[in-house]
Every structure is written in C-alpha cells, then in structure tokens.
C-alpha cells in the first residue's frame, strides 16, 4: 500500500515538473518581449543577450511615448474610441434585432437571418476594394466612424447568433404573459429579457473588444492618418521605420498592445470562452 502511494507521489511530482517546464517554454516568447521593454537601449543590442536584465529602466516607454510628439498615445486613444464605439453601436442595434429573431416573427425574417449569417461565410478580406470604394463615396474613408461601421458589420453576426440563442432559451410564456399585462415589445425586452441575458451580453462585449483591439488589416487599409490609425497599425509603423529599426520601441509597443486583452481574458475567462465557442456545441 505504502509503495503504491509513494510511487504515485513521485509520478505526480514528475508530471507537475513537466507541466511547469512546458508552460515556461510556452510563455517564454512573451517573457522575452516583456523584459526587452524594460532593458536600456544599449543592452538590447548586446550580444550575448541576457535572460534577466542587468538593469531595469522605463527608457523604452519614455522613448515610445515621446516619439513623433506622442503619436503612440494618439494610436491608443483612437483604438479605445473605435473599439468602444463599435461595442456601443453593435449592442444598440443587435439586441433588438436578436430579440426579434427570437420572439417576434415577421415575413421575410428567415431570409434576413440567413443574410446576416452569410456575413460569416464571406471573408471581408475579399471585399477590401468595394469597401474602399464605398467608404470613399460616403466620405468615410480615413474616419473613425467609417472604421466603426465596418467593424460593426463584420463582427456583429456572431453576436446576433449568440444573443438570439440566449433569448430563445428563455420560455416564450414570459413574453406572452407580459404582453397580456399590456407591456410593449421594447419594455419586455429591456425590463424582462435583457437582465436575464447579461452573461451573453458580456460575452459579446469581450468578443467585440478583442476583435476591435487586435484588428490590423481593416485599420491598415481604411485609415491614412494618425488621427484614425489604431495601435496595431501604429506598432507596424514603428517596426517598418525607414532608416532605423528600434527593437526597444517595437517590443514596448507590443507589450502595451497585449496587456489589455490578456488582462481582460484572465479576469473574465468564463465569458470569454463562452463567447469564443458559441456554435461549437449544439445544445
């Protein structure tokens, strides 16, 4: 009996050790970028490289935020405005829409639902030219509003699907009895249904935030000035500087770009995973 237990403990320790080493290797790239951001410039180009920095400074952050008259702060601001704008617009329009898809049938609804879902099927990467054409015509090229509208269109189908499922799972009898009490559709949605679906709303918000914050190609193509560019495009501009390539600045920009999404994920893991796996499992 004793020997079996002992064997088990050794095995457990062994398994844990392997897992610790494995995760250390797995997270090493992120660690390496983090410590590079805190090294002084001279040490970054030193060979052999140091695994643990000899001195820690905020020089790189200072350099990043003062470069080009603080243009990086502007990129962060743009990204925040565009992301929040997208979240607000999408929630504002998809909640009633999902509600109608779940509870308020009308003629032609099925076609509209299929149309919305077909956005998932058509990659927006294949519509870059016509979207560029459209934005130019609407005078929305290189504007935050233009980018918000495009994000909203291509990120919302998933949210509609998720919210509609959430509304549908609630018993229909609630709606009918509320209707008999004389409540309007809008009041029923806001006062009764929405409070019961808050987890799904949170999942939508996270989904939109991650997609908006991490987008590169849409912002890259549909923005042309520092007033609109987002943080990912900003990092690429620093990385593709013409005559210099400052790895201190690039790594620091990268660190700033990954912190919000990683923190959000760690705090709201459950919702995040729910948001990302909708549709994976048939209920």
């Amino acid at each position, binding site marked *: 009996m004793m020997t079996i237990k002992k064997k088990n403990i050794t095995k457990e320790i062994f398994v844990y050790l392997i897992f610790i080493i494995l995760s250390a290797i797995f997270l090493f790239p992120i660690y390496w970028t983090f410590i590079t951001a805190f090294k002084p*410039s001279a040490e970054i*180009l*030193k*060979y052999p490289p140091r695994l643990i920095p000899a001195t820690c400074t905020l020089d790189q952050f200072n350099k990043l935020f003062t470069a*080009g*008259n603080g*243009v990086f702060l502007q990129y962060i601001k743009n990204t925040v405005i565009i992301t929040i704008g997208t979240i607000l617009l999408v929630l504002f329009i998809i909640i009633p829409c999902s509600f109608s898809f779940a509870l308020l049938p009308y003629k*032609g609804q099925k*076609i509209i639902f299929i149309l919305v879902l077909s956005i998932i099927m058509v990659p927006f990467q294949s519509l870059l030219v016509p979207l*560029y054409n*459209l934005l*130019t*015509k*609407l*005078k*929305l*090229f*290189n504007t935050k509003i233009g980018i918000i509208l495009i994000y909203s269109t291509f990120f919302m189908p998933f949210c509609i699907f998720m919210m509609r499922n959430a509304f549908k799972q609630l018993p229909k009898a609630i709606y009918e009895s509320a209707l008999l009490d004389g409540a309007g559709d809008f009041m029923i949605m806001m006062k009764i249904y929405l409070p019961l679906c808050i987890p799904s709303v949170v999942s939508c918000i996270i989904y939109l935030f991650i997609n908006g914050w991490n987008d590169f190609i849409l912002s890259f193509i549909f923005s*042309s*000035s*520092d007033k609109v560019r987002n943080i990912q495009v900003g990092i690429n*501009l620093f990385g*593709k*500087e*013409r*005559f*210099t*390539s*400052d*790895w201190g600045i690039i790594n620091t920009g990268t660190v700033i770009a990954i912190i919000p999404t990683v923190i959000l994920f760690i705090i709201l893991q459950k919702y995040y995973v729910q948001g990302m796996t909708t549709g994976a499992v048939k209920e």
Partner: protein
Amino acid sequence: MKKTFCLIIIVLMTFTNVFAQGGMEATKESKPVMLTVWDSNAGIEGVVNKFNEKMESEGRNVRAKFELIPYDQQVPKFIASLNAKTAPDIYSLDVVQYPYFISIGAFTDITDVYESMPYKNSLPKGMLPVGSKDGRVYALPYELDLSSIIYNKDMFRDAGLDPENPPQTWDEFTIACRALTKDLDGDGVTDQWAFAEVGNSGGGYMFWFMPWIWGNNGRMFDDSGNLVLNSPEVKETLQYWYDLIYKEKVVIKTSINWGSGDRYNAFVARKIAMYLGGNFNISSLQTDAPDMDFGVCLIPRNRGQNASFAGGNMIGITSQSKNVPEAKEFLKFAFSEDVLVETYAPNLALVPRADLYDNKYYKAIPQMSIFADILAASRTPVSLKYNLIYEPVLYYFQGALLDKIPVNKAVEECATEINRLIK
C-alpha cells in the same frame, strides 16, 4: 422573392447616393484658410509652426497644419486622397514619384515661384528636371537624402587602413574589405564583417545599389527613357556584389534579408565596419553611438565616376488645392534662409539650397563637410512608372545575391520584366 431582392438593391443604391451627396455638402470649406501639408518627414512641422507664428503675428487668418504620411504609404494615400478629392494643399513627396503625378496633372504649375527665387541657381540641378515638364516647374527639391557609405574609423585603424583615405574604387574597396573582416576571438567564426549589402527592399536597391552601377558606367534608362538595364556594366556590378559575398566572404550573408534599420543596428553594435547609409543617419548615430569615431565617404567607382542617388522629397502644390496663393506664400517662406537653417540644419538634415551649406550647424560636425561633394555627384533616375520598378528589382537582384538565380540571367529577366510592366 426575386422582386423583393431587386427592390432592396434599388433602395440601397439610392441610399448610398443620397449619403454621398449629403457628405459632399457637409465638407464645404469654412472662411479661414487652412493649408494642409503632407510629408513623410516630420521635419517640416517646424516650418509649419514658424509659418503659423508669422501669420498670427501679422494678424492674418491663414494657418497651416501638418500631417505625417508614412514613407511606404505616401503614394497609396495620395492616390486615395486624389480619388476622394481630399488631396492636401502642399505635398512633400518622394522625388522619384513626381514624373507620374505631374503627368496626370496632380500638381500645380509653380514656375512663377521658382523664377521669383533669387537663389534659384543654388537648388540641386540633378533633381530639378524630375519636377519639371515641358519647361514648366511643378515641384522643387526640398528635403534631400543622399546615399553614401559610413565607416568606422577605429576599425580602419585597427586593420592598418588610413581612416582619412577611405576606398574610392572597387579595387581599393575589396582590399579594405579583406582587412576589415576578422575573427576577433579566434573561434573560427567571423565576428567583425567589412560590409553589409542591400537586403529586402526594392527602394533600397535603387537608392544604394544604383550608384554602384553608375560608378561602373551602367544605367537604368538612357536619355530618351528607354530601359538599358540589360548591359554588361550592370551584370558586372551585380557580379561584384555577388563575389563580395561568396568569393571574398567579406559581406555578412544574413544582410541580404536586412532592412536599412538592421544595417544601422549592426553598425552601431560594431558588427560591421562599413555600411550603406546616408546623411539621415548622422544625427542618430551621434545619440546611439556617442563614442564611435565614424566617417562618411562616396560609394566607390569602377569604370565611371563616383555617384550618389539624390533621393528625398520635392515639394509641390497639388492641383486640388483651393488656396493656391497662400500655398505659394508658404512655399516661399519654406525656402527662406532663416527657416531652412533653423529648422533643418540643427537636426543635420540636408537643406536644398547649396548656398546655405556653410551654416554653423553643419560646420560643427566634421562628417557633414563631405555632403556638398556628394550632392554634386548625385543624380536621380526619371521614370513615369517608377513604382513598378521596385518589385522586379527586389525579386531578381535579391534572388541573385541569395544565389537562387545566376547573375546574368537575373539582370536579363529583370530587364524583360520591367519592360513588360512599364510598357
């Protein structure tokens, strides 16, 4: 069903049109004149600020605002803005792009501004034709970039070379390279390289490799604009670069995939003794490598004359500008001695007027003294479809230096491809 669908489409089309027109009315300009200035070089912001101060002190309702356009987006963004009718008033754009944009009428005739300049003869003559068409002037050289070699004088001394007499010909260059390539710690692996060649950008080959071709009497275009890249002189030049890597083994091989920033970093980290840089590196080298003794010299020649690529930006007024008189005033202001010397010279950026090169800022830096000579040796190739040259040049020249295509074949196919594209 089909009917409904068609109806939706019609409604949709109407919507977009209504929006489009609504948008147009909304952008009617307001009373005060606001000049938009685009540049890929942030230096001009100082000019804009000085201009605004002047306008304010004179109590005039004219202001300028500056927008930084990243170098690799300056053409796409310009095209987009011309298309959207939102082009800036003033654009300081890469010199090589002007022939095309002037040919499609994107710039305004500023011959009168040029003629009124008392210092017009001090503007670089090699660049002026690029901004002119049929005897009219559409753009003027403004922010200059000259390709040259920057070398580490300490490494020259350690290798027994004279740091004050850098190599001028290919033969001298090869000899210097052999002396500068070293295995410092004796482990059989080279850790100090003589040189790094151009790597992963087509623009880089034009700016830094073309002067080697010129120095061997080769050319890309002849005087009537025909492509003459397919010549023994060009093949010889590419072969020379190839030999430096594979025969002489004095060029760090990984540099074939570097950008100019990587070359700069390697020079700062003292991994290479000489590199292809330019005036734009001088002030940053002073901050990044304050204890390094470095010199600047011309790119070596073989059968021809030492040459340099006169790059950088020319400045012009776009044809969509609604404030041409004010924009012309801005141009004249931007070329005045005070503005040029006090805005650009302190950062060691090259000013376009040769009569201003003995200013106190350049004089304080010994490395700046040679740029007047380099400017005199510099030239700019003219092509209407310059943008289309980059791709094939990168593909074939890098391919040859990576040892993936034989040198002669690379030059021939590159010429065929460029001819096909610009036809």
